[in-house]
Protein backbone atom coordinates (compact mmCIF):
# COMPACT_ATOMS: atom_id res chain seq x y z
CA UNK A 1 0.00 0.00 0.00
CA UNK A 2 1.22 3.47 -0.81
CA UNK A 3 2.01 5.60 2.21
CA UNK A 4 -1.26 5.93 4.05
CA UNK A 5 -1.39 8.39 6.93
CA UNK A 6 -0.80 6.96 10.39
CA UNK A 7 -4.25 6.39 11.92
CA UNK A 8 -4.17 4.43 15.21
CA UNK A 9 -7.63 5.62 16.31
CA UNK A 10 -9.31 4.75 13.00
CA UNK A 11 -7.53 1.39 12.98
CA UNK A 12 -9.52 0.42 16.09
CA UNK A 13 -12.63 0.59 13.93
CA UNK A 14 -11.32 -2.17 11.67
CA UNK A 15 -11.52 -4.69 14.50
CA UNK A 16 -14.52 -6.96 15.03
CA UNK A 17 -16.60 -9.14 12.77
CA UNK A 18 -18.74 -6.39 11.31
CA UNK A 19 -18.20 -4.30 8.19
CA UNK A 20 -15.88 -1.34 8.68
CA UNK A 21 -15.91 1.92 6.79
CA UNK A 22 -12.22 2.34 7.66
CA UNK A 23 -11.40 -0.92 5.87
CA UNK A 24 -13.35 0.27 2.85
CA UNK A 25 -11.74 3.69 2.73
CA UNK A 26 -8.29 2.11 3.06
CA UNK A 27 -9.10 -0.18 0.16
CA UNK A 28 -10.17 2.81 -1.93
CA UNK A 29 -7.01 4.67 -0.85
CA UNK A 30 -4.89 2.18 -2.81
CA UNK A 31 -6.11 3.95 -5.93
CA UNK A 32 -7.43 7.25 -4.64
CA UNK A 33 -5.32 10.03 -3.06
CA UNK A 34 -8.60 11.64 -1.96
CA UNK A 35 -9.49 8.60 0.13
CA UNK A 36 -6.00 8.62 1.70
CA UNK A 37 -6.26 12.27 2.74
CA UNK A 38 -9.76 11.63 4.03
CA UNK A 39 -8.34 9.05 6.47
CA UNK A 40 -5.72 11.55 7.61
CA UNK A 41 -8.17 14.37 8.23
CA UNK A 42 -10.60 12.06 10.02
CA UNK A 43 -7.86 10.81 12.37
CA UNK A 44 -6.93 14.42 13.09
CA UNK A 45 -10.59 15.20 13.87
CA UNK A 46 -10.77 12.23 16.25
CA UNK A 47 -7.66 13.48 18.03
CA UNK A 48 -8.76 17.10 18.25
CA UNK A 49 -12.48 16.37 18.66
CA UNK A 50 -13.38 18.95 16.01
CA UNK A 51 -14.70 18.60 12.49
CA UNK A 52 -12.67 20.05 9.65
CA UNK A 53 -15.31 20.44 6.96
CA UNK A 54 -16.61 23.74 5.57
CA UNK A 55 -19.98 23.96 3.84
CA UNK A 56 -20.20 25.19 0.28
CA UNK A 57 -23.32 26.89 -0.99
CA UNK A 58 -22.88 27.58 -4.64
CA UNK A 59 -21.47 24.49 -6.37
CA UNK A 60 -23.80 22.56 -8.65
CA UNK A 61 -24.40 21.72 -12.26
CA UNK A 62 -25.79 24.11 -14.83
CA UNK A 63 -29.56 24.53 -14.63
CA UNK A 64 -30.00 22.50 -11.43
CA UNK A 65 -30.37 23.83 -7.91
CA UNK A 66 -30.13 20.49 -6.16
CA UNK A 67 -28.20 17.24 -5.97
CA UNK A 68 -24.73 18.59 -5.25
CA UNK A 69 -23.68 19.29 -1.68
CA UNK A 70 -20.57 21.46 -1.44
CA UNK A 71 -17.86 20.54 1.06
CA UNK A 72 -14.33 21.86 1.55
CA UNK A 73 -11.60 20.94 3.99
CA UNK A 74 -10.54 23.77 6.30
CA UNK A 75 -7.01 22.27 6.25
CA UNK A 76 -6.36 22.35 2.49
CA UNK A 77 -2.61 22.80 2.94
CA UNK A 78 -2.28 19.72 5.10
CA UNK A 79 -4.77 17.56 3.14
CA UNK A 80 -4.66 19.04 -0.38
CA UNK A 81 -6.44 16.14 -2.08
CA UNK A 82 -9.64 16.83 -0.16
CA UNK A 83 -9.54 20.63 -0.33
CA UNK A 84 -12.74 20.10 -2.38
CA UNK A 85 -14.85 17.14 -1.33
CA UNK A 86 -18.34 17.65 -2.79
CA UNK A 87 -21.09 15.03 -2.52
CA UNK A 88 -23.41 14.16 -5.40
CA UNK A 89 -26.82 12.61 -4.90
CA UNK A 90 -27.88 10.41 -7.81
CA UNK A 91 -31.51 9.48 -8.36
CA UNK A 92 -31.80 5.75 -7.63
CA UNK A 93 -34.11 3.49 -9.61
CA UNK A 94 -37.43 2.83 -7.81
CA UNK A 95 -37.00 -0.05 -5.37
CA UNK A 96 -33.20 -0.01 -5.83
CA UNK A 97 -33.05 -2.57 -8.62
CA UNK A 98 -29.88 -2.48 -10.71
CA UNK A 99 -28.03 -4.70 -13.08
CA UNK A 100 -24.44 -5.31 -12.00
CA UNK A 101 -23.50 -3.73 -15.32
CA UNK A 102 -25.16 -0.45 -14.31
CA UNK A 103 -23.42 -0.50 -10.93
CA UNK A 104 -20.03 -1.10 -12.55
CA UNK A 105 -20.58 1.85 -14.86
CA UNK A 106 -21.42 4.15 -11.94
CA UNK A 107 -18.33 2.96 -10.05
CA UNK A 108 -16.10 3.44 -13.11
CA UNK A 109 -17.33 7.00 -13.51
CA UNK A 110 -16.74 7.74 -9.86
CA UNK A 111 -13.25 6.25 -9.75
CA UNK A 112 -12.38 8.47 -12.68
CA UNK A 113 -14.18 11.64 -11.55
CA UNK A 114 -14.19 11.45 -7.76
CA UNK A 115 -12.84 9.68 -4.70
CA UNK A 116 -14.30 6.31 -5.70
CA UNK A 117 -16.18 6.23 -2.39
CA UNK A 118 -19.93 5.62 -2.53
CA UNK A 119 -22.74 5.19 -0.06
CA UNK A 120 -25.43 2.81 -1.22
CA UNK A 121 -27.82 4.31 -0.27
CA UNK A 122 -28.28 7.55 1.64
CA UNK A 123 -31.24 8.08 3.95
CA UNK A 124 -32.93 10.02 1.15
CA UNK A 125 -32.73 6.81 -0.92
CA UNK A 126 -30.27 8.25 -3.45
CA UNK A 127 -26.99 6.73 -4.55
CA UNK A 128 -24.45 8.92 -2.75
CA UNK A 129 -21.16 9.66 -4.50
CA UNK A 130 -18.75 11.05 -1.93
CA UNK A 131 -16.01 13.51 -2.70
CA UNK A 132 -15.11 15.33 -5.87
CA UNK A 133 -13.78 18.70 -6.97
CA UNK A 134 -15.75 21.60 -8.46
CA UNK A 135 -14.23 21.15 -11.93
CA UNK A 136 -15.34 17.49 -12.05
CA UNK A 137 -19.04 18.20 -11.36
CA UNK A 138 -20.14 18.94 -14.93
CA UNK A 139 -18.10 16.09 -16.48
CA UNK A 140 -19.52 13.65 -13.91
CA UNK A 141 -23.02 14.86 -14.67
CA UNK A 142 -22.61 14.33 -18.39
CA UNK A 143 -21.00 10.90 -17.89
CA UNK A 144 -23.97 9.91 -15.72
CA UNK A 145 -26.45 11.19 -18.28
CA UNK A 146 -24.75 9.03 -20.89
CA UNK A 147 -25.67 5.96 -18.84
CA UNK A 148 -29.19 7.30 -18.18
CA UNK A 149 -28.76 8.40 -14.60
CA UNK A 150 -29.81 11.81 -13.28
CA UNK A 151 -28.94 13.85 -10.21
CA UNK A 152 -31.36 13.77 -7.27
CA UNK A 153 -32.71 16.47 -4.97
CA UNK A 154 -31.16 18.62 -2.23
CA UNK A 155 -31.87 22.03 -0.74
CA UNK A 156 -35.37 23.50 -0.67
CA UNK A 157 -36.77 21.22 -3.34
CA UNK A 158 -38.62 17.96 -3.79
CA UNK A 159 -36.21 15.31 -2.61
CA UNK A 160 -35.73 12.20 -4.72
CA UNK A 161 -38.90 10.13 -4.27
CA UNK A 162 -38.17 6.74 -2.73
CA UNK A 163 -40.13 3.52 -2.10
CA UNK A 164 -40.07 -0.03 -0.79
CA UNK A 165 -39.57 -2.82 -3.33
CA UNK A 166 -43.35 -3.32 -3.23
CA UNK A 167 -44.93 -5.57 -5.81
CA UNK A 168 -41.58 -6.52 -7.28
CA UNK A 169 -40.87 -8.78 -4.32
CA UNK A 170 -43.50 -8.45 -1.66
CA UNK A 171 -46.92 -10.08 -1.59
CA UNK A 172 -48.19 -7.54 0.95
CA UNK A 173 -47.90 -4.50 -1.31
CA UNK A 174 -51.34 -2.88 -1.50
CA UNK A 175 -50.38 -0.69 -4.45
CA UNK A 176 -47.55 -0.49 -6.96
CA UNK A 177 -45.05 1.63 -5.05
CA UNK A 178 -42.45 1.50 -7.81
CA UNK A 179 -44.88 2.68 -10.48
CA UNK A 180 -46.06 5.60 -8.34
CA UNK A 181 -42.50 6.56 -7.43
CA UNK A 182 -41.45 6.59 -11.07
CA UNK A 183 -44.55 8.52 -12.11
CA UNK A 184 -44.14 11.22 -9.44
CA UNK A 185 -40.41 11.49 -10.15
CA UNK A 186 -41.04 12.16 -13.83
CA UNK A 187 -44.07 14.39 -13.24
CA UNK A 188 -42.28 16.64 -10.77
CA UNK A 189 -38.90 17.09 -12.51
CA UNK A 190 -39.02 20.88 -12.13
CA UNK A 191 -39.77 20.66 -8.42
CA UNK A 192 -36.92 18.14 -8.01
CA UNK A 193 -34.24 20.16 -9.78
CA UNK A 194 -35.36 23.76 -9.25
CA UNK A 195 -35.73 24.52 -5.55
CA UNK A 196 -38.77 26.77 -5.06
CA UNK A 197 -40.13 25.61 -1.70
CA UNK A 198 -39.73 27.15 1.77
CA UNK A 199 -37.70 24.04 2.67
CA UNK A 200 -37.25 20.38 1.70
CA UNK A 201 -40.20 18.12 0.86
CA UNK A 202 -40.05 14.32 0.79
CA UNK A 203 -42.38 11.63 -0.53
CA UNK A 204 -41.91 8.04 0.54
CA UNK A 205 -44.05 5.17 -0.69
CA UNK A 206 -44.55 2.04 1.40
CA UNK A 207 -46.65 -0.81 0.05
CA UNK A 208 -48.21 -1.72 3.39
CA UNK A 209 -48.26 -0.55 7.03
CA UNK A 210 -45.05 -2.47 7.79
CA UNK A 211 -43.57 0.66 6.20
CA UNK A 212 -40.15 -0.76 5.32
CA UNK A 213 -38.99 2.69 4.15
CA UNK A 214 -40.04 4.28 7.47
CA UNK A 215 -42.09 6.79 5.54
CA UNK A 216 -44.11 7.74 8.60
CA UNK A 217 -41.00 9.14 10.27
CA UNK A 218 -38.97 10.30 7.31
CA UNK A 219 -41.21 11.91 4.73
CA UNK A 220 -43.41 14.96 4.61
CA UNK A 221 -45.95 12.98 2.60
CA UNK A 222 -46.07 9.30 3.57
CA UNK A 223 -48.05 7.14 1.14
CA UNK A 224 -48.74 3.85 2.89
CA UNK A 225 -50.58 0.93 1.29
CA UNK A 226 -53.69 -0.24 3.07
CA UNK A 227 -56.92 -2.20 2.49
CA UNK A 228 -60.45 -1.27 3.49
CA UNK A 229 -62.29 -4.58 3.31
CA UNK A 230 -61.61 -7.72 5.32
CA UNK A 231 -58.31 -9.43 6.05
CA UNK A 232 -58.21 -12.53 3.86
CA UNK A 233 -58.10 -15.71 5.91
CA UNK A 234 -57.26 -19.30 5.04
CA UNK A 235 -58.87 -21.23 7.88
CA UNK A 236 -57.04 -24.47 7.17
CA UNK A 237 -53.72 -22.60 7.35
CA UNK A 238 -54.73 -21.05 10.70
CA UNK A 239 -55.37 -24.55 12.04
CA UNK A 240 -52.04 -25.73 10.68
CA UNK A 241 -50.24 -22.97 12.64
CA UNK A 242 -52.11 -24.02 15.79
CA UNK A 243 -51.37 -27.70 15.21
CA UNK A 244 -47.71 -26.92 14.80
CA UNK A 245 -47.69 -25.31 18.22
CA UNK A 246 -48.25 -21.59 17.67
CA UNK A 247 -49.94 -20.02 20.69
CA UNK A 248 -52.51 -18.05 18.70
CA UNK A 249 -54.19 -16.58 21.77
CA UNK A 250 -50.96 -15.25 23.23
CA UNK A 251 -48.96 -14.40 20.12
CA UNK A 252 -51.70 -13.06 17.89
CA UNK A 253 -55.01 -12.29 19.60
CA UNK A 254 -53.65 -10.75 22.81
CA UNK A 255 -51.30 -8.52 20.82
CA UNK A 256 -53.90 -7.13 18.46
CA UNK A 257 -54.08 -3.37 19.19
CA UNK A 258 -57.63 -3.25 17.81
CA UNK A 259 -58.68 -5.98 20.30
CA UNK A 260 -60.74 -7.30 17.46
CA UNK A 261 -59.66 -10.93 17.26
CA UNK A 262 -61.14 -13.98 18.93
CA UNK A 263 -59.76 -17.53 19.10
CA UNK A 264 -61.72 -20.39 20.65
CA UNK A 265 -59.08 -23.01 20.03
CA UNK A 266 -60.58 -23.98 16.68
CA UNK A 267 -61.64 -20.91 14.81
CA UNK A 268 -60.15 -17.43 14.47
CA UNK A 269 -62.56 -14.52 14.14
CA UNK A 270 -61.71 -10.93 13.22
CA UNK A 271 -64.04 -8.00 13.73
CA UNK A 272 -62.62 -6.06 10.78
CA UNK A 273 -64.41 -2.81 11.53
CA UNK A 274 -62.11 -2.40 14.56
CA UNK A 275 -58.93 -3.47 12.79
CA UNK A 276 -56.20 -0.80 12.97
CA UNK A 277 -54.32 -2.26 9.96
CA UNK A 278 -51.22 -2.72 12.08
CA UNK A 279 -50.07 -5.84 10.14
CA UNK A 280 -49.19 -7.72 13.35
CA UNK A 281 -51.42 -10.77 12.81
CA UNK A 282 -50.48 -10.96 9.13
CA UNK A 283 -46.77 -10.79 9.95
CA UNK A 284 -47.11 -13.62 12.48
CA UNK A 285 -49.25 -15.90 10.29
CA UNK A 286 -48.29 -15.00 6.73
CA UNK A 287 -49.60 -18.26 5.30
CA UNK A 288 -53.01 -17.88 6.88
CA UNK A 289 -53.72 -14.14 6.72
CA UNK A 290 -53.20 -11.50 4.08
CA UNK A 291 -54.37 -7.95 3.42
CA UNK A 292 -57.88 -7.57 1.96
CA UNK A 293 -58.69 -7.29 -1.72
CA UNK A 294 -59.96 -3.70 -1.83
CA UNK A 295 -56.56 -2.06 -1.73
CA UNK A 296 -55.22 1.48 -1.98
CA UNK A 297 -53.24 3.81 0.27
CA UNK A 298 -53.52 6.05 3.27
CA UNK A 299 -51.88 9.48 2.94
CA UNK A 300 -50.16 10.94 5.97
CA UNK A 301 -48.57 14.36 6.19
CA UNK A 302 -45.99 16.14 8.25
CA UNK A 303 -43.12 14.03 9.55
CA UNK A 304 -39.60 15.36 9.99
CA UNK A 305 -36.44 14.77 12.00
CA UNK A 306 -35.61 17.10 14.89
CA UNK A 307 -33.81 20.29 13.91
CA UNK A 308 -35.35 23.28 15.64
CA UNK A 309 -38.58 21.65 16.74
CA UNK A 310 -38.57 18.02 17.89
CA UNK A 311 -39.17 14.99 15.69
CA UNK A 312 -42.65 14.61 14.27
CA UNK A 313 -44.48 11.65 12.74
CA UNK A 314 -46.83 12.04 9.81
CA UNK A 315 -50.53 11.95 10.63
CA UNK A 316 -53.49 10.92 8.52
CA UNK A 317 -54.77 13.39 5.98
CA UNK A 318 -56.60 11.06 3.57
CA UNK A 319 -57.68 7.76 5.20
CA UNK A 320 -58.04 5.83 1.94
CA UNK A 321 -57.46 6.50 -1.72
CA UNK A 322 -57.34 4.13 -4.68
CA UNK A 323 -53.93 4.51 -6.33
CA UNK A 324 -54.11 3.93 -10.03
CA UNK A 325 -52.41 5.67 -12.97
CA UNK A 326 -52.48 8.50 -13.86
CA UNK A 327 -52.78 9.28 -10.12
CA UNK A 328 -54.58 12.57 -10.83
CA UNK A 329 -56.32 12.97 -7.47
CA UNK A 330 -53.11 12.57 -5.46
CA UNK A 331 -51.30 15.03 -7.74
CA UNK A 332 -54.08 17.56 -7.29
CA UNK A 333 -53.79 17.22 -3.52
CA UNK A 334 -49.99 17.57 -3.67
CA UNK A 335 -50.28 20.71 -5.82
CA UNK A 336 -52.75 22.22 -3.37
CA UNK A 337 -50.53 21.46 -0.38
CA UNK A 338 -47.50 23.00 -2.12
CA UNK A 339 -49.48 26.09 -3.16
CA UNK A 340 -50.55 26.87 0.39
CA UNK A 341 -47.20 26.02 1.99
CA UNK A 342 -45.17 27.97 -0.62
CA UNK A 343 -47.41 31.00 -0.27
CA UNK A 344 -47.56 31.10 3.55
CA UNK A 345 -44.67 28.95 4.81
CA UNK A 346 -41.72 30.65 6.51
CA UNK A 347 -38.17 30.10 5.35
CA UNK A 348 -36.98 26.63 6.52
CA UNK A 349 -40.40 25.65 7.83
CA UNK A 350 -41.35 22.05 7.02
CA UNK A 351 -44.95 21.42 6.10
CA UNK A 352 -45.58 19.64 9.44
CA UNK A 353 -44.35 22.67 11.40
CA UNK A 354 -46.38 24.93 9.14
CA UNK A 355 -49.54 22.97 9.98
CA UNK A 356 -48.70 23.19 13.69
CA UNK A 357 -48.36 26.96 13.38
CA UNK A 358 -51.50 27.71 11.36
CA UNK A 359 -53.61 24.89 12.82
CA UNK A 360 -54.87 21.77 11.07
CA UNK A 361 -58.34 23.28 10.69
CA UNK A 362 -57.11 26.29 8.74
CA UNK A 363 -54.75 24.13 6.71
CA UNK A 364 -57.50 21.69 5.67
CA UNK A 365 -59.69 24.63 4.77
CA UNK A 366 -56.94 26.08 2.58
CA UNK A 367 -56.24 22.84 0.69
CA UNK A 368 -59.94 22.07 0.36
CA UNK A 369 -60.24 18.87 2.40
CA UNK A 370 -63.16 18.04 4.70
CA UNK A 371 -62.16 17.03 8.23
CA UNK A 372 -62.85 13.36 9.03
CA UNK A 373 -62.53 11.32 12.23
CA UNK A 374 -59.41 9.46 11.03
CA UNK A 375 -57.45 12.74 11.10
CA UNK A 376 -57.52 12.79 14.91
CA UNK A 377 -53.91 12.01 15.79
CA UNK A 378 -54.52 11.32 19.48
CA UNK A 379 -57.76 10.80 21.41
CA UNK A 380 -59.05 13.97 23.05
CA UNK A 381 -57.05 16.22 20.81
CA UNK A 382 -58.78 18.90 18.79
CA UNK A 383 -61.02 16.82 16.53
CA UNK A 384 -61.09 19.55 13.88
CA UNK A 385 -64.84 19.99 14.10
CA UNK A 386 -65.88 23.50 13.21
CA UNK A 387 -69.17 25.29 13.50
CA UNK A 388 -69.88 28.21 11.22
CA UNK A 389 -71.44 31.37 12.75
CA UNK A 390 -74.88 30.54 11.38
CA UNK A 391 -74.92 27.03 12.85
CA UNK A 392 -74.52 28.16 16.49
Amino acid at each position, binding site marked *: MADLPNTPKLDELEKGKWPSFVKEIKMAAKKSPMAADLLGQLEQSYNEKIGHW*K*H*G*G*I*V*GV*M*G*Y*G*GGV*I*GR*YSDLPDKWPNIS*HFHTMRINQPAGWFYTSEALRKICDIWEKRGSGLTNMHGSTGDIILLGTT*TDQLEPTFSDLQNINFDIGG*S*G*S*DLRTPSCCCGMARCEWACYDTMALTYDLTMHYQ*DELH*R*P*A*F*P*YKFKFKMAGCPNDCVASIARSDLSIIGIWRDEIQMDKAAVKEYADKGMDIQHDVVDRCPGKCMEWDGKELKIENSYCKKCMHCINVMPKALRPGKDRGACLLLGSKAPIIEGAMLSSVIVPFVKLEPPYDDIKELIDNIWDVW*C*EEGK*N*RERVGEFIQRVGMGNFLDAIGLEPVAEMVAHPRENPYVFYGEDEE
Partner: protein
Amino acid sequence: MAKTKEDVVEAMFKMVKEAQGQKKLKPMDLTKAMIELYGDEGVDKQMCKDAIKELINSGRCVYTYYGGSYIEIPHQEGAAN
Protein backbone atom coordinates in the same frame (compact mmCIF):
# COMPACT_ATOMS: atom_id res chain seq x y z
CA MET B 1 -49.87 47.13 -20.63
CA ALA B 2 -49.38 43.38 -20.41
CA LYS B 3 -45.95 42.27 -19.29
CA THR B 4 -44.11 39.46 -21.06
CA LYS B 5 -41.93 36.72 -19.60
CA GLU B 6 -38.88 38.65 -20.89
CA ASP B 7 -39.94 41.74 -18.89
CA VAL B 8 -40.19 39.58 -15.78
CA VAL B 9 -36.77 38.00 -16.45
CA GLU B 10 -35.20 41.48 -16.60
CA ALA B 11 -37.05 42.76 -13.54
CA MET B 12 -36.07 39.69 -11.52
CA PHE B 13 -32.44 39.93 -12.63
CA LYS B 14 -32.37 43.57 -11.51
CA MET B 15 -33.78 42.62 -8.11
CA VAL B 16 -31.22 39.84 -7.61
CA LYS B 17 -28.38 42.10 -8.72
CA GLU B 18 -29.40 44.92 -6.39
CA ALA B 19 -29.82 42.53 -3.47
CA GLN B 20 -26.49 40.73 -4.05
CA GLY B 21 -24.34 40.98 -0.95
CA GLN B 22 -27.20 42.59 1.01
CA LYS B 23 -29.98 40.04 1.17
CA LYS B 24 -30.43 36.56 -0.21
CA LEU B 25 -33.62 36.13 -2.23
CA LYS B 26 -35.59 32.91 -2.57
CA PRO B 27 -37.53 32.04 -5.73
CA MET B 28 -40.77 32.74 -3.85
CA ASP B 29 -39.52 36.22 -2.82
CA LEU B 30 -39.00 37.04 -6.50
CA THR B 31 -42.36 35.59 -7.48
CA LYS B 32 -44.25 37.47 -4.78
CA ALA B 33 -42.51 40.75 -5.63
CA MET B 34 -43.31 40.39 -9.35
CA ILE B 35 -46.96 39.59 -8.72
CA GLU B 36 -47.17 42.52 -6.32
CA LEU B 37 -45.69 44.86 -8.94
CA TYR B 38 -47.19 43.49 -12.14
CA GLY B 39 -50.08 41.26 -11.09
CA ASP B 40 -52.47 43.67 -12.81
CA GLU B 41 -50.43 43.38 -15.97
CA GLY B 42 -50.84 39.67 -16.49
CA VAL B 43 -47.92 38.37 -14.41
CA ASP B 44 -48.83 35.16 -12.58
CA LYS B 45 -47.06 32.30 -10.78
CA GLN B 46 -46.53 30.27 -13.95
CA MET B 47 -44.91 33.21 -15.76
CA CYS B 48 -42.61 33.75 -12.77
CA LYS B 49 -41.70 30.06 -12.73
CA ASP B 50 -40.82 30.23 -16.42
CA ALA B 51 -38.83 33.43 -15.90
CA ILE B 52 -36.76 31.83 -13.12
CA LYS B 53 -36.11 28.83 -15.36
CA GLU B 54 -34.86 31.23 -18.04
CA LEU B 55 -32.58 33.09 -15.58
CA ILE B 56 -31.01 29.82 -14.40
CA ASN B 57 -30.78 28.09 -17.78
CA SER B 58 -29.08 31.12 -19.32
CA GLY B 59 -26.50 31.09 -16.51
CA ARG B 60 -27.21 34.70 -15.53
CA CYS B 61 -28.26 33.49 -12.09
CA VAL B 62 -27.49 30.35 -10.08
CA TYR B 63 -29.13 28.54 -7.20
CA THR B 64 -27.22 28.64 -3.94
CA TYR B 65 -27.77 26.83 -0.67
CA TYR B 66 -27.29 28.33 2.79
CA GLY B 67 -29.64 26.34 4.98
CA GLY B 68 -32.33 27.04 2.39
CA SER B 69 -32.14 27.57 -1.38
CA TYR B 70 -31.61 31.04 -2.87
CA ILE B 71 -31.08 32.68 -6.25
CA GLU B 72 -27.92 34.74 -6.76
CA ILE B 73 -25.51 36.11 -9.35
CA PRO B 74 -22.74 33.54 -10.02
CA HIS B 75 -19.63 34.21 -7.94
CA GLN B 76 -16.67 32.45 -6.34
CA GLU B 77 -17.61 31.35 -2.84
CA GLY B 78 -15.56 32.11 0.23
CA ALA B 79 -15.37 28.50 1.41
CA ALA B 80 -13.58 27.50 -1.82
CA ASN B 81 -10.44 29.42 -0.83
